[in-house]
């Protein structure tokens, strides 16, 4: 039997990872909740953001956290343009077409990265990132703790935007009643692109928080994209807090799966949850619109 302290430590590790997963998934969930589209390029966009942070740290000498105020708006602008001029134009709202277009964008981004940066795995060196901090029975790298805390702040900020700003009201209006929103004077296409932009901007924040304890490679998005889809489906497509709790849960499942089944096979737990949720409860645990 495992000692309870090891189990508790694994649980805390899982929660810390889960907070960042939740942030990545929230970007995806917001896009689904408003646009009702599945963005296959979400992982590839995260990969691109991770490379951006990497080069800001390595070439410009910026601290990864100092990159947040640069990367969040930059990623938002990229997302806005991507939706307005590529995804919306090409798909004209057809569900299958959106899947294909975002898949095409993901292919281009991932393989451009592969062609430009090769398949090397890159990490950054930060002096204090691996200093250990005791959290209950667990020893966490300081940067992981910072990432979890940063992700929680970002989630709350995102919630504030959706709940308490005019933009948030417009987004929720469009999510609920597209046509009615248009009639009361909301520029629906603009709001769609803004929702997509917010979804991408969360990836900018997530990339800055992740990189100190993680790595970047052209395929790094793959792992995240399925984890994020799992969280979104589990939490209920488009549900804000569903994605949050789903993220924490998946972090814990991954951590415990790794503990009991080993690093490689441990991933099975996530996909088992994914398939089971899709089959048995496709509305998710918190299934409701934004």
């Amino acid at each position, binding site marked *: 039997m495992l000692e309870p302290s090891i189990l508790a430590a694994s649980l805390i590790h899982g929660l810390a990872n889960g907070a960042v997963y939740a942030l990545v998934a929230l970007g995806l969930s917001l896009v689904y909740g408003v646009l009702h*589209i*599945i963005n296959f390029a979400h992982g590839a966009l995260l990969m691109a953001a991770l490379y951006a942070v990497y080069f800001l740290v390595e070439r410009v000498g910026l601290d990864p956290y100092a990159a947040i105020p640069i990367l969040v708006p930059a990623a938002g602008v990229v997302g806005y343009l991507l939706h307005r001029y*590529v995804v919306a*134009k*090409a*798909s004209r709202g*057809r*569900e*299958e*077409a959106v*899947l*294909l*277009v975002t*898949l*095409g*964008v*993901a*292919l*281009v*981004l*991932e*393989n*451009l*990265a*592969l*062609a430009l940066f*090769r*398949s090397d795995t890159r990490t950054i060196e930060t002096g204090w990132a691996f200093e250990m901090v005791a959290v209950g029975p667990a020893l966490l790298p300081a940067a992981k703790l910072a990432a979890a805390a940063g992700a929680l702040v970002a989630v709350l900020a995102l919630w504030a935007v959706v709940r308490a700003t005019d933009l948030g009201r417009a987004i929720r209006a469009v999510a609920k009643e597209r046509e009615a929103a248009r009639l009361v004077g909301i520029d629906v296409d603009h709001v769609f692109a803004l929702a997509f932009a917010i979804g991408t901007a969360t990836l900018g924040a997530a990339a800055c928080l992740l990189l100190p304890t993680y790595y970047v490679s*052209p395929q790094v998005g*793959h792992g995240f994209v*399925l984890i994020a*889809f*799992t969280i979104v*489906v589990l939490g209920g497509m488009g549900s804000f807090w569903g994605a949050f709790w789903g993220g924490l849960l998946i972090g814990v499942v991954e951590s415990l799966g790794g503990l009991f089944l*080993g690093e*490689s*096979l441990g*991933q*099975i737990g996530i*996909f*088992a949850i*994914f*398939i089971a949720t*899709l*089959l*048995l409860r*496709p509305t998710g645990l918190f299934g409701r619109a934004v």
Partner: protein
Amino acid sequence: MRSLPAIGFFALAALPLPWLTSSGTVLNLATMVLLFATLGQAWNLLGGMAGQFSFGHAAFFGTGAYATAIAQIRFGLDAWSGFALAILAAVAMGALVGFASFRFRLRGSYFALVTLAFAEVARILANSLEITGAGVGLLLPLAPGLDRLQFADKAGYYWFALVLCTGGLVLASLVRESRLGARLAAVRENEEAARALGVDAFAVKMQAILLSAGLAGAVGAFYTQLFLYLDPHIAFGPQVSVEALLGPIVGGTASLWGPVLGAAVLQLLGEASRALTGGATGANLVAYGIVLVLIVRFFPDGIIGMGRARAADARGVTG
């Protein structure tokens, strides 16, 4: 059997290629075109005819590929039995994925996601289990001979691929011109209406996925014979699923020849982009991604649909 003469003509026209050229590059390229044309045809049985977009056809391809490799390496069977087992195993995988998804009426994006997840589970299992050689993969011993389905020269593999591709075309044309094809089209266009008219949507979608998975499994088994090496990423990786759907989408899902045309265009484009960039890894996939976005944007009915769209424009028909 309206398409049979055209298929016969295609097979006969493609037959003499190895006598016309001695270039290994050309034969390799032609073999890959036929391989991906058949994989695309398999995808199209489900994605094009039934309108169920799979993002996880690697699950069927890889099951077929591993089944014949395991049958030959672990159980000492000959390659023909291995080939038959590969198709059966892939059909079984199709039954599993299809039953799970269609029983619970998953459609559209949800179906795409669940197929993707099944392929990933297969990849992780292949990466962890001993029988599949885990991360190291499986290597078939080189032993040319008809009982091993290994050929001494490239021409043998080319003709093997041609037989497979022709078989896929015949299968697809039979389905297309049968009652099943009509029911699949009904389900694709409007599932509720099809149900209301008495079409058992679950049954016809199951038939489509079984045929699709079996053909994809045959392609996987061919892949094993061709390269004699497999690992979890080659067999179950997302790039297989992507290549399976790219050909039909680019060529046109509505036609028997769409997947063939799409595979030819993509393989040539891949070669060209590799040549232009001096063989940079990923260059071909960058080109595929751009073509995919452009096709969806400007020619949603694929290359084959281009001519039709223009003809419709000339008649003043829109939409």
